[in-house]
């Protein structure tokens, strides 16, 4: 069975803490520097909106998701569609 870990992004769950950006810059640049991070959280504090933006240099390494406390970023195991159905499982279609 093929299992891939995919980065699932759910911005509506973001609490704006920027732990993702801080961790990314430490892992990839060796310093804390949100400006050098591959992910940035742009905060509109009057509107309560947090916008997640990834740079083109992001490698989808998943470090941001490993430290995300809110579920806005998650590493999900996605089974391939060639996986055999479990015994007794019937397709709805």
């Amino acid at each position, binding site marked *: 069975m093929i299992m891939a870990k995919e980065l699932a992004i759910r911005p509506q769950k973001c*609490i704006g*803490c920027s732990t993702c950006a801080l961790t990314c810059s430490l892992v990839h640049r060796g310093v804390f520097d949100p400006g050098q991070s591959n992910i940035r959280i742009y905060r509109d504090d009057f509107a309560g909106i947090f916008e997640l933006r990834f740079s083109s240099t992001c490698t989808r390494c998943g470090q941001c998701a490993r430290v995300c406390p*809110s579920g806005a970023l998650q590493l999900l195991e996605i089974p391939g569609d060639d996986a055999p159905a479990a015994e007794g499982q019937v397709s709805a279609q």
Partner: protein
Amino acid sequence: MTKSYGYAGKILDIDLTTGKIGTVVHDDNYRRRYLSGAGFNARVLYDEIPVGADPLGPENILAFNVGVLVGTNIPTASRSEVSAKSPATGLFGTANSGNFWGSELKFAGYDGIIIRGRASRPVTIFIHNDAVKIISAAHLWGKDAWNTIVTLRRELGDPEIQVAAIGPAGENLVRFASIENGPYDAWARTGLGAVMGSKNLKAIAVRGTGSIAVARIKEFRETVTATRRAIYSSPFYGPFERFGTMLVTLPYQEFGILPGRNFQTGVIDGWVETRSRKLVPRYSNRGVACIACPIACAHWVVVKEGPYSGLKMKDMEVTPVIGFGAGCDIDNLPAIAKITEICQRLGLDMVSAAAAVAMAMELYQKGELSESDLGYPLPWGDENATFRLLEDIAHRRGAGDALAEGTPRAAARMTGSDKKAIHVKGLECFLMDPRGRWSTWTLGYITNIRGGDHLRTRNPVENLRYNENSVPYRTEKFAFPEAMYRNLDMPEQLKQEIFDPETKDTDIPKMSKWSEDLISLYNATGMCIRPPVLHTVGPTLIAGLYSSLTGIDITPEETIQAGERAWNLQKLFNIKHGEKPEDSDYPARFYEEPVGAGPAAGRKLDRVKVKETLAEYYRARGWDPQTGHPTREKLAELGLDDQNSNFSQ
């Protein structure tokens, strides 16, 4: 200059009288002793503010200092400390706040700012990395804090600028004016906004695009992971992530320890249905965090119906809900959210503002303050009158002018005595009633360096299910599973002295000393005091984080001692500036008037027992049990017997 790890490396020193801008750099020895935050501020204020200095005069110093752990991904490391001689107490004034201002200052290259003197005209300090400018704020003077933030971001051309600003209350020298930290957070207590206003300083706008280096990355990352695991493992984590500080709203009503109607009653009719944590899901479905915080104790509130429909803000914290909801008996959360917005715009400390309005309502109830004094009636629970009175306080209009002096001065002016003012050392204490529930937390009202306040002492394993003192005034019920205290990051010897596993009791005076030192350590490093942290992150983890981040090795023992050192230095400041032993005492109401209604009805404090407990606390601290002054032995132990301390009993 050698490379700095963890620390940005320098502190700005700005004289607003002369316009001179300099920097200060501390060596590793100084850093190890005082860490940062409240530790650094205590040393500067103690050394440099002269005896007799007017808190609202140019000789006062306003010191901002960011926790050394801030700007990293250490969970909850977001806090910075602002300190000055307080216009409310005349003693060590200090307040702590998270959000994003402190980290932005570090990314700009500074650990703090020392502000001296007084500008001749209103100014803003604008810091953009190496460029530090003092610019005119003539057009901002009179604007509320929210408009100031919006205007500065627009004019300076960057929406990511973080702003510390005062509102009209700070400009008008209200003795409980706050410094707003962005729109929704504040360095609120002890009137530091008035100090900023007295210096004609409207705002400090900061943008930083630099970086913070880590000395030993692998070790640091391992310790951060251990810290994250510790916080998540706390049984307090889930409830706090869900309800934030609103968690306590149910037990306070259950025990009858709300400050109802200016501490005349411990319970409020309909409290659970109208103002408790049960209402949180109605108005909010997500949290809002400070930088690096996984708890997100604040809520994004949206009001969808009623007179405040359309209100959206970060809110619903226990302080305004208890202060205005119980203290003033305002019976709905949307109105309290509106009050929160008004306080944030005006730049008012919500604890003291609630106490001022509640006292005015009681004076109105008892005929000592009239409609003609105010210009409007002020019955209990009147939200519209509360809005008007807060504006009157901030602009010093009518009766608001007297209340702007803080409740003790206002009560003395209006009634000839301060008996209806609920304060310690001039600072209003307005959360829970010690008459109805005696604990480490309530002893903290009178041991707190900054006066009547609930935020610098707290039992890390306080159990809000119980309200029992097996030995009156001396112990509180613990009664959690044994693992809770076995896992506490506290020296084993001290654990044995503080906890009795047989009786499930906690020694209050000793726990007070420990928790004050621990919170002092947090305030000197930038950690947050929310219960999931307070319960799990102690000197061992903090020593590991500090050492691996900065490369300055420190032991757990030295770490907690740095917290104790900062606390003692603040006490020395207070003694130097005139604090008397008798100042560390509860307001008269708690001794003379029993709680009016609820489960705690009829209870009042016993002066003799309080005095005995305070003496025990002083002994636990190594202070003179009569005067509460640190002894020479204690100062020598802490290395505070240097010539600058100049301390004599």
